[in-house]
């Protein structure tokens, strides 16, 4: 059982101290405090000293600036604070490193480390030796607090406050960043971004999407000022592309960067808090962009810049993932929601767990000091993403704080942001939609990017044009006229003009004149009556699902899914044949004559059927509706497979004939497409066969062998020269070979 402790906040009161002396402090701590307080090491004496203002009088004049700051902060917090929080907050307020000062105040008995709840043997001297007092609450005694109250001069310090701050115009906001990402991804959706061999974005391809981007702090789009030879612009676009990749809205596909509508819709329709959380994680995970290099670039021309930095195949940012996570964690713990000097934020991140940063950054290629990295992260990653806001004070001091969405991205509590209320757009009769960005949810912008072309962006107003092509493209991506008109009415300051609504519906009618079902199964049966029965059952089985069977004729139907059990049941309930038009072909071609195949057209998959049209002539006279004869046409084969006609036609037929391409047909194709296989026919031969290889080898080694043997066939057989019969008889006699009347059973 843990002893009850009377208090865990405020100054160290006598009853709590009594409890800690009983079960909390080790004897060494009791002696330590007695020495520090210059009293007897008895429990009662010490407990009495806690409230005795005369025991440890304060001399304000003897206090250092930092000691005053520690007392000021502790008084602000009611007399107690966690060591690492005190240190962090003092760093953040520009007082610098306070760990030695905290240690000296503990050593003087003015700050008391409070044992952790489970610690029954807390040794204050050990805490000081190890520096682990930062992980403990540090409390003032009521006596010290009273002494501080009595000496207001002791707390007379110059605490920086930043009330009159003007926001810097050169930074971005999370809203700006999202609009840029949406714009870039929407244009890449239509026209994938080409990547060069080294992974850098192709400039011409990038320029098409980049003209509509607004650079950090810029109100309108970059438009005519776009210069991809400017390393800063190219760097910012690289940042956007790399971030889009980590957010899952852009992805490499061979030599292109692409995006999918589903991924875009999923991201930009997610709730704001979720998007912000993803942003925080993605910024930490950035693999294909590096803020340290980004800062170095600012002083270079593009010619001097290393292309590796812009490459979307070189994970130059990966070594910094741990360091970024560290900085974000420090900002989260410090909860920097009020203005703080940028120098103090850098100092805070540098000083807290400096060893970790040193270790992490040591893995990076190239030299990078912790302060240099933190500075780069603040000036680039956190500035460009809008997680931090920056400002200037009256005395020109640069300050920063977490933006509301930045705080939410770091998961800080109490960072709810009210959703924009009221209208944000106006639909004009000329099919232009003006959107007031400050009040526009990003999901509305996503819908407008789907169905429209953004024509202009200036002064927080974006103008989209709805055109036949763009709207039908949007419909093909899943938008609908009804939903679009409803959205425009819901978020519009005025109702959608009637002519516009009519046209949106009409474009949908045009769009639906061609419907594509991406995946499904074709069912065919030569008997229409039986097919009616099969499809009737199938329609019944599909009635609860979103899929359907579309009749294409008396003998054909298309089912809009391949996975439903109803299809499997239909195939099992009737004699059936399963074909695949994307996998291995079924063997449905039968050779019936040299270079003539027969097939049942019902049993041909689409690829085989179309290829037969390219490679053969149909023998109409011999064919019937259910058995078609196709004569392979050598000229057509050469035309279809110009590079390697023999290999390709053999591969085509081999995969489609039961048992593979008959060898005779392969020889014939070789003769037609390459050159005939050559053979020699020899008649009236004398063949001598041996029973074993050793005897055959000895025979081959005879002195007369060159005159006797015309050719050796394998190990055991010899063709004897036609004019050497007499010589053979002679040898047989000389060597004692006996001739069997019948061939040997065992062959080689």
């Amino acid at each position, binding site marked *: 059982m843990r002893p009850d402790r009377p208090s865990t906040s405020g100054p160290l009161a006598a009853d709590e101290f009594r409890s800690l002396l009983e079960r909390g402090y080790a004897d060494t701590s009791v002696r330590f405090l007695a020495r520090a307080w210059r009293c007897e090491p008895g429990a009662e004496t010490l407990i009495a000293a806690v409230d005795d203002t005369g025991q440890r009088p304060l001399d304000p004049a003897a206090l250092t600036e930092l000691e005053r700051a520690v007392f000021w902060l502790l008084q602000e917090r009611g007399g107690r604070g966690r060591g690492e929080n005190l240190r962090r907050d003092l760093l953040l307020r520009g007082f610098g490193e306070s760990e030695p000062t905290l240690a000296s105040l503990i050593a003087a008995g003015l700050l008391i480390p409070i044992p952790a709840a489970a610690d029954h043997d807390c040794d204050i001297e050990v805490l000081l030796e190890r520096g682990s007092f930062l992980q403990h609450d540090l409390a003032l005694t009521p006596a010290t607090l009273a002494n501080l109250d009595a000496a207001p001069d002791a707390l007379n310090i110059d605490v920086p406050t930043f009330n009159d701050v003007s926001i810097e115009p050169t930074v971005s906001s999370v809203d700006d960043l999202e609009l840029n990402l949406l714009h870039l991804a929407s244009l890449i959706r239509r026209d994938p971004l080409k990547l060069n061999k080294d992974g850098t974005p192709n400039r011409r391809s990038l320029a098409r999407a980049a003209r509509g981007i607004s650079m950090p702090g810029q109100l309108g789009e970059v438009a005519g000022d776009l210069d991809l030879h400017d390393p800063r612009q190219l760097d910012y676009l690289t940042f956007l592309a790399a971030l889009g990749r980590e957010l899952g809205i852009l992805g490499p596909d061979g030599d292109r960067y692409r995006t999918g509508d589903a991924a875009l819709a999923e991201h930009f329709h997610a709730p704001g808090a979720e998007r912000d959380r993803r942003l925080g994680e993605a910024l930490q995970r950035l693999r294909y962009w590096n803020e340290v290099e980004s800062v170095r670039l600012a002083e270079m021309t593009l010619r001097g810049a290393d292309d590796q930095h812009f490459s979307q195949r070189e994970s130059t940012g990966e070594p910094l993932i741990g360091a970024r996570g560290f900085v974000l964690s420090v900002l989260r713990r410090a909860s920097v929601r009020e203005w703080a000097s940028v120098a103090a934020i850098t100092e805070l991140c540098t000083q807290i767990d400096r060893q970790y940063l040193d270790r992490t950054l040591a893995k990076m290629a190239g030299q990078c000091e912790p302060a240099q990295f933190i500075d780069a992260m603040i000036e680039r990653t956190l500035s460009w993403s809008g997680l931090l806001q920056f400002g200037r004070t009256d005395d020109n001091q640069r300050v920063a704080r977490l933006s509301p969405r930045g705080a939410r991205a770091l998961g800080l509590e109490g960072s709810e942001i009210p959703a924009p209320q009221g209208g944000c757009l106006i639909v004009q009769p000329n099919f232009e939609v003006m959107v007031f960005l400050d009040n526009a949810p990003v999901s509305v912008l996503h819908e407008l990017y789907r169905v429209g072309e953004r024509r202009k962006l200036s002064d927080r107003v974006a103008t989209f044009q709805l055109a036949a092509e763009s709207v039908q*493209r949007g419909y093909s991506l899943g938008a609908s006229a009804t939903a679009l008109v409803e959205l425009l009415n819901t978020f519009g300051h005025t109702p959608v003009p009637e002519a516009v609504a009519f046209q949106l519906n009409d474009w949908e009618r045009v*769009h639906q004149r061609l419907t594509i079902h991406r995946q499904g*199964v074709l069912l065919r*049966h030569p008997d229409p009556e039986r097919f009616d029965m099969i499809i009737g059952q199938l329609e019944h089985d599909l009635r609860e699902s979103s899929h359907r069977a579309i009749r294409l004729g008396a003998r054909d139907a298309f089912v809009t899914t391949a996975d439903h059990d109803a299809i499997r049941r239909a195939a099992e309930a009737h004699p059936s044949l399963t074909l695949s038009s994307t996998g291995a072909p079924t063997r449905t071609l039968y050779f*019936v004559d040299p270079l003539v195949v027969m097939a049942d057209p019902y049993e041909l998959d689409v690829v085989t059927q179309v290829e037969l049209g390219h490679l053969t002539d149909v023998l109409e006279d011999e064919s019937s509706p259910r058995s078609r004869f196709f004569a392979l046409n050598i000229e057509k084969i050469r035309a279809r497979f110009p590079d390697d006609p023999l290999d390709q036609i053999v591969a085509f037929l081999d995969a489609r004939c039961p048992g593979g391409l008959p060898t005779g047909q392969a020889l014939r194709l070789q003769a037609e497409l390459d050159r005939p296989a050559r053979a020699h026919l020899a008649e009236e031969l004398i063949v001598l066969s041996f029973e074993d290889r050793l005897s055959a080898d000895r025979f081959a080694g005879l002195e007369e062998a060159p005159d006797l043997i015309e050719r050796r066939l394998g190990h055991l057989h010899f063709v004897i020269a036609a004019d050497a019969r007499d010589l053979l008889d002679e040898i047989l006699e000389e060597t004692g070979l006996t001739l069997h009347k019948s061939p040997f059973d065992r062959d080689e």
Partner: protein
Amino acid sequence: MVHGTSHRRERSAPDPSLRYATLAQDLLVVNHGLALMLCEDAAILEETLRAIEPLDLHIRRIGDLALLVPADEIEGVLETLHAQGTFPRVLGPQLIPDTQEAP
């Protein structure tokens, strides 16, 4: 032609005559891996065929309104149609190519 033998019809195994016996059974053919292009009228079908003609696809036409292509060729069709300013209604998920090699 081999000397002393008559002309021999070369056949794939099994003997096609067996196939005629199977044909008599009238099989239900289940053809997987297809995409369907369904047109409002014959004119739209002709227009669509003309638009995708350069692609060298495997297209089977069924009646006046339907075109079938292997599902792995439909994205090329869509790209071509989009490039020409036609944005058809598209239903169903995109085919994910099987990149794993067969064992």
